């Protein structure tokens, strides 16, 4: 029963209208779209609305939207330009900074090198001055020693002569002339040092 009712309702609601729609031939039963009597009215109002839209779009709306978009693009472009300029400037500043940094580093290195050079020069100078002084003192000392030596040698002959004549007096009990004693001592000395 239920199934039959379902089939009937399906036929009533779907198949019948569809069949009617396509079976209808011309006149009042056909597609309302084909009713020629409605054409003038539709064409007239389509023309009115189309013209209305076209005039307002062409004269007001579209140029206005275009202007808005152009303004925005121009603004965007100018901002981008500005940003580009700023970044260029920043690059320049960075380069200048790096340059001055390098200069300062070079200057510092130069100063340090100069100081080192000065110090070593001074050290060398002082060293040579000291060496000169030491050499002089050494030479003087050498001279003093040589003088003392000759003096000592000179008085040694005299002492030896005295001792020799004294020994001859005491041992051989003979007096020897001072000149003879001196000669003998000199001869002995000569023999000894030869």
């Amino acid at each position, binding site marked *: 029963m*239920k199934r039959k*009712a*379902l089939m009937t*309702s*399906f036929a*009533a*609601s*779907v198949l*019948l*209208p*569809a069949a*009617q*729609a396509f079976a*209808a031939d011309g006149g*009042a*039963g056909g*597609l*309302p*779209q*084909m*009713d020629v*009597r*409605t*054409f*003038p*009215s*539709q*064409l*007239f*109002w*389509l*023309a*009115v*609305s*189309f013209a*209305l*839209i*076209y005039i*307002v*779009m*062409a004269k*007001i*709306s*579209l140029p*206005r*939207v*275009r*202007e*808005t*978009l152009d*303004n*925005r693009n121009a*603004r965007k472009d100018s901002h981008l330009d500005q940003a580009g300029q700023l970044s260029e400037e920043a690059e320049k500043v960075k380069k200048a900074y790096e340059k001055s940094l390098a200069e300062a580093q070079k200057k510092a290195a130069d100063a340090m090198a100069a100081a080192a050079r000065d110090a070593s020069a001074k050290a060398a100078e002082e060293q040579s001055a000291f060496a000169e002084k030491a050499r002089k003192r050494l030479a003087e000392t050498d001279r003093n020693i040589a003088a003392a030596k000759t003096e000592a040698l000179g008085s040694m002959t005299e002492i030896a002569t005295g001792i020799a004549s004294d020994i001859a007096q005491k041992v051989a009990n003979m007096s020897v002339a001072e000149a003879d004693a001196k000669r003998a001592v000199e001869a002995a000395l000569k023999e000894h040092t030869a």
Partner: protein
Amino acid sequence: MSDILEQFALKPIVPIHLGSFDISFTQSSAFMIAGALLTIALMTLTVRGKALIPGRWQNISEILYESIFGLTREYLSDEAWKYFPFVFTVFMVVLMGNLFGLIPFAYTYTSQIIVTGALAALVVGFATLLGFVRHGLHFFSLFFPKGTPIVMAPFIIPVEIISYLSRPVSLSIRLCLNMVMGHMLMRLIGGFCVTMIALGIGLKLFTAVTFSVNTMLMALECLVALIQAHVFAVLTCVYLKDGVELH
């Protein structure tokens, strides 16, 4: 009059007669004017401030503007601005007709073959006129593409002429039938739902399924409305390009 076609019937609201012509103000006319007013309001009021940062409404007009202008520029490159208002108007008229039709009880004027036919005739007529104005009799070279062997002329030329003449036909019928079929199907399934409930023969689940199918169909029809308006605008550009450049 049958059930599912009733929605396309025109009922005069204000009967107007101009001479022997009946130009009564019908529901169709009402929605044409409503579409025009909505288009004008949308495209004029929203950009009144020419805001640098667009609000929601201004965004809609800008998206419409940019999509259709992009399309026009793609086909007509340097001369896009000249023909842009025409393409935009055609697009908006079709779009408004399609979208308004999706509101229950509203009238879909793009389901009328006379309306789509008039629009198609306007587009193709304008393109043809443009071709004659710009190229004179050279316009006929459109029917004989360059580089075709002369022997082929008797075959190519009739084919090209038929394809050119079928342009307004295919343009108008495509849009009209898309709208008619969509609305008929929705009405059919909707009517089935109502009958099921009215007859009270249970199977609530079955009714629910049909109803949800209709809901999905509604979403599909929204898509179809947009796509068909876009297709109409694209073909308008293609035909204008033929008139301007002759291939």
